[in-house]
């Protein structure tokens, strides 16, 4: 049973979402402020966090950054703003996905399932390490770990799944739409900024030199591909 931490300041929305998610079989803890959310993160240990961007006191973006400072828990932003800049900043702060409020329960539920699949996706071949090495980068497809230059790289679920998807076919060009469908399970016409923000975070975490990425390369006019050997 997935454990969901809901951080939402409006009481009615909080109650409605908690109610709807519980009916879907989730275990939900709902809090009203970012501070409470951060403390629940440690005690409740949720499988996924749903975070409202507009929070009183500590803002949603700050909460997002603090969560990402020491946790790669799947994180979905909920924004009522429709303000495009906030979405980008939120994604760059480390959110895996976002929903625009008002959101129907089954849409949120689908996003939660998708983001959870991103972590458990390769559970089938459990136990047998499947290492792949590309230069200084090692990907364990079974243990879902990535090391770069001997250092383990902590990847959020969307980042990990993006890297696994791209590196499954090195050299093949994926369009943003393809990646949206494969990694985020969004529609073809989803927000391509999810892909761009995720690639950016991934490159930063792998210590790519700015402007000359070795592993995830931009193919102008088409999309992205994993390094050609």
């Amino acid at each position, binding site marked *: 049973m997935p454990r969901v931490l809901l951080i939402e300041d*409006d009481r009615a929305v909080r109650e*409605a979402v908690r109610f709807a998610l519980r009916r879907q079989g989730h275990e939900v803890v709902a809090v009203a402020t970012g501070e409470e959310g951060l403390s629940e993160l440690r005690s409740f240990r949720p499988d996924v966090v749903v975070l409202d961007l507009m929070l009183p006191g500590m803002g949603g973006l700050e909460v997002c950054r603090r969560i990402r400072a020491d946790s790669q828990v799947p994180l979905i932003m909920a924004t009522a703003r429709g303000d495009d800049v906030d979405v980008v900043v939120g994604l760059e702060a480390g959110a895996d996905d976002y929903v625009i409020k*008002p959101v129907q*329960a089954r849409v949120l539920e689908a996003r939660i399932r998708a983001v959870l699949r991103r972590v458990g996706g390769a559970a089938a071949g459990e136990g047998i390490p499947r290492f792949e090495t590309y230069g200084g980068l090692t990907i364990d497809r079974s243990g879902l770990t990535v090391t770069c230059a001997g250092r383990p790289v902590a990847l959020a679920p969307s980042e990990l799944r993006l890297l696994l998807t791209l590196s499954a076919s090195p050299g093949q060009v994926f369009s943003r739409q393809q990646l949206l469908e494969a990694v985020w399970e969004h529609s*073809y016409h989803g927000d391509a*900024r999810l892909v*761009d923000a995720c690639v*950016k975070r991934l490159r930063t975490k792998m210590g790519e030199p700015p402007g*000359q990425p070795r592993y995830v*390369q931009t193919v102008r006019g088409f999309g992205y591909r994993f390094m050609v050997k």
Partner: protein
Amino acid sequence: MKLPLFLRGLRVRLLVAFALVAAVSALTTGGLAFREARIAVLQQSQDDVIKRFREHVNALAHRLSYPPDQQGLATFAAEVARSEPSQNWRVLATYGDLSATSAPNDSFAELTPALRDAVGSRRAAVFQRVSHNGVSSLVVGLPITFANSPGETPELSGMAVFLTISQVYEQDAVAALVGAVERATLPALAVAVLLALLAARGVLRPVRALRHATRSMAEGRLDTRLSVNGSDELADLSHAFNETAAALEESVAELRRMEARARRFAADVSHELRTPLAAMAAVTDVLDEEATVLGADTATAVGLISEETRRLTRLVNDLMEISRFDAGAADLHLDEIDLAESVQRTLASRAWSTEVGTDLPPPGVLRGQVDPRRLDVIVANLVGNALRHGEPPIRLRLYVRERPGAGPRAVIEVLDSGPGIPEDVLPHVFDRFYKSDAARTRTEGSGLGLAITAENVRLHGGGIVAGNRPEGGAVFTVEIPLLREGVLAGLPEGGEHDTP
């Protein structure tokens, strides 16, 4: 005939006027001065000559034997000529048919018969200025009279003396005068031109400033003001311009404030509606699931609430979208995609693939820089509109049209086979909340669908038109440029660097 622009300009007109005034006044003054001076010079020398001539003749006349013979006349003429110190007198003495000149063989051509006659009939000195062979001379005739006693009328002797004196010096003096006038006119003209330029500058500078300011206002810089110098009519004009500009700026600012307030109000209202809607939308699924186990009446009521909540959500979302367009906050997130694939995905995701016939280019042929989400909205709204208001068959065509100078454009046509759009409705189909007839007031759409579609097309730099097909049915045509200036700005970071 129209003068070229540069000749009609204020500067040229001022220049010509000043030059004309200067030339006319210089020439008039010079001419008048010349005439007076010339008369004065000539009169002076003439009076002088006549006076001396008469003195010499009076002084010598008594030596003359009367009636004189040829020899006597010659001696008299020579003596009169010699008595003048300047030695340039030519004298002719006549008596009846006899005549003698001071210089031998002098034809005395300057002497006119009229002068000779005048001397013959008068008792006073007679003179005439003649020009002979380009040299002007003064010819003076003096009849010699007897005066036996003072007070008695002098008696003509029949003898006359004529003097011809060249007036070269006087001519030179007059010529010098003319030269002086000429020489004075040129500097006067030059000064006039200079003054004209200065005056033109004084007039033109404010005029030019005014022109720039007007243009600047027309370009939307309503805070344009002129600096007012002096207190002449042009300064008044500048002042009036500034007042008008200030009034205009204030009115426009007020209008903008009102418009902004109205827009912000719409945005705020939809925003405020979102939070309660967010709570309601989260639980509509629960209502749908439970409706089956409720009593019929309750199920109907619950179904209505659930459905209308979804409708309200769509409406509020559309209002938010329109507010973003109004606020200029709508961004294009460009990506290069296969447009045919995008259109197919739009139809497939809404289960419209079987209801809509398509003429699409093969995969990979029509690629372009668009915002995929907005293209999805455009296609979905047009097809949805055709499905609601038109009748099947509905067709969607996608092709490329080359516009000379504008580059290739993707054309999307959505055609239906319904009754078409009434002529009086056509100009309003993209208006917000425009309802063409009362029966349609309760349709699935929010009333903003086509307005949002048009905004999305415009955001892509394209155009949209609605019309009716000759064979019946409505057609919506969208044109979107495929290549854009600065498209790279819409692409994510790293695009320029790591392409092999």
